[in-house]
């Protein structure tokens, strides 16, 4: 398979009043064309900052300190702002959690999509509007010829997310970054949006990075998965492997602490959920050694002294945990 995106040792740091934090701390990932990579983690783990780093959209107080982001072999980090603007929207597109804040409330949705089209394609305004109508139909909005004239507030949350997707798809990007695209939506709408993203991915042989906090969504929609914790990828593999043989104690904790659906069955519905003790460490005050060591039941002295590296324990399955690495060996 053709490698589309390769992130190499990416480090994104932020300078704040309280000090410098590493929001993304040495992340390496590979994504092939037509593949969906799920990135899971809790709030503050750096998953959104990773996506924004790829897009070249990190907030003003942040910067990329190190690493490469290669799209088809070209390092996006070495591009000028103007060249990057060319890439954004045309080759890489992004959709966000809250579609209402990403849409302009005073423009009709047809015009907004047409604007995105005309930014990258030299077509007359009229044709762009016609194309946006077709895109709306493609993302499953009923009566697109009427809906192009609607304003964002006239649409439901699910419909707004469809409009965002239509806009993102307007230039047939090779890579779609979806940051919690269904978190603000109801479960029946979520299922429809995930189906839509999958269908568009298949049709256009597009790669998708799906950022979510919900393991269920990853299991459903992704082929590969990376689990992030406090700025680092702690485990990455194919989806089947991650769920059938999770190796990092944090991944295991996440899967096992999920009510129903995953680990527990009707039989132990009465039982307590497994928990991960404690809370995610503050990025300002990371523990020495492994970042998960304070919450880990298996932690040894070594874990509190040295930070484990991401190592391949079986083909395509990487884990950064001394103990899992030793056991598998």
């Amino acid at each position, binding site marked *: 398979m053709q490698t589309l995106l390769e992130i190499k040792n990416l480090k994104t740091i932020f300078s704040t009043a309280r000090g410098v934090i590493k929001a993304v701390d040495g992340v390496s990932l590979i994504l092939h064309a037509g593949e969906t990579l799920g990135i899971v983690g*809790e*709030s503050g783990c750096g998953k959104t900052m990773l996506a924004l780093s790829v897009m070249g959209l990190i907030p003003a107080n942040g910067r990329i300190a190190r690493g490469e982001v290669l799209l088809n072999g070209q390092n996006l980090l070495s591009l000028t702002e103007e060249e990057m603007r060319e890439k954004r929207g045309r080759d890489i597109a992004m959709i966000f959690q809250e579609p209402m804040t990403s849409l302009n409330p005073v423009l009709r949705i047809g015009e907004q999509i047409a604007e995105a089209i005309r930014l990258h394609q030299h077509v007359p305004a009229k044709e762009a509007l016609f194309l946006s109508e077709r895109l709306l139909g493609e993302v499953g909005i009923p009566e697109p010829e009427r809906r192009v004239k609607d304003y964002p507030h006239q649409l*439901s949350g*699910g*419909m707004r997310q469809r409009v965002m997707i239509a806009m993102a798809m307007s230039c047939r990007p090779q890579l779609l970054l979806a940051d919690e695209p269904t978190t603000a939506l*109801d*479960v*029946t*709408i*979520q*299922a*429809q949006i995930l*189906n839509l993203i999958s269908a568009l991915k298949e049709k256009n042989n597009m790669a998708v990075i799906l950022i979510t*906090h*919900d*393991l*269920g*969504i990853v*299991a*459903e929609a992704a082929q590969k998965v990376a689990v992030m914790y406090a700025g680092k990828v702690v485990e990455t593999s194919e*989806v*089947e492997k991650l*769920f*059938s043989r999770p190796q990092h104690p944090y991944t295991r*904790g*996440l*899967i096992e*602490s*999920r*009510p*129903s*659906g*995953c*680990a*527990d069955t*009707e039989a132990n*519905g009465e039982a*307590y*959920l*497994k*928990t*991960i*003790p404690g*809370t*995610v460490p503050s990025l300002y005050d990371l523990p020495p050694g492994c970042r998960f060591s304070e919450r880990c039941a298996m932690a040894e002295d070594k874990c509190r002294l040295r930070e484990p590296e991401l190592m391949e324990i079986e083909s395509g399955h990487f884990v950064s945990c001394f103990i899992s690495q030793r056991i598998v060996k």
Partner: protein
Amino acid sequence: MASVLIDIQKLGKKYILGGGFLQNRPRIIRAVNGVDLQIFEGETLGLVGESGCGKSTLARLLIRLEEPDAGRAYFKDQNIFAFSSDDLKIYRRRVQMIFQDPYSSLNPRKSAISIIQEPLNIHQIAGRKQNREISVQLMTRVGLSHEQTKRYPHEFSGGQRQRIGIARALALQPALVIADEPVSALDASIQSQILNLLKDLKKDFGLTYLFISHDLNVIRHVSDRIAVMYLGCIVELADKNNLYQAALHPYTRMLLAAMPNCDPHKPKREITIRGEALDAGDQGCNFKNRCFYKIAICDERQPKLKSCEGGGLCACHRAGDI
């Protein structure tokens, strides 16, 4: 059979939207539309539904933050909407609420201990000093430490704030706790901690829960019985296992099918999910526009909630034959 703690009868609440100057016809939203529901002592009743289905309005009615337009609700045979202000004060000691957002439901200018102590002082449970002791005990009971008593909400993490909210709700030793999406705003690794805490507290304090959530996994874990709400109406009510194994209402089935599943080997869903929860007009079943089992009668009459095989209740003309 446990005794009935809350008996809701034909409860209704509508809101009128728009209709102001420059606007067209006002829109009537029936947030709660003729709900009948009983909550038994000692059980956890799960209330599940999507946003806008009226589940939070129902909770707010029960705690008397809203006044109903129709129907009644009884707390141990007392009509809660006929309470005098003294009675209401007593009632509010017996029924407490835990909110979704632990950030906005705690006063940022009060320390943790004074937040928990406030209801004790208002209801003059004991002297100030003793109230304080009770509060400290509660704080430790919900997993916070002595050193944290004087801290302010912003110094706590989301999970810890929710613990403060829980301690505050328990301070008056209520009989019923209404938990409105208590874990939705929390991270995955914290959710399970709070769910376990709620379970422990239920046992220790002999509580009854009305547990509201949109998350079917959470609801399944905590509930004994589950009520499914759609556009203001209860469409299905059943024991937990019946609901998850043999859902009767097409909407419940759709919800279950839409639930993300953690097993990547599981075959993809057989049920197609379509449409959105939009007001379906005055006539017929609310769900008719999204339903795959629709027949002529669904356009004409709204189905009533009636008993079905297996002991559950379902509001569908075709319950049992689909």
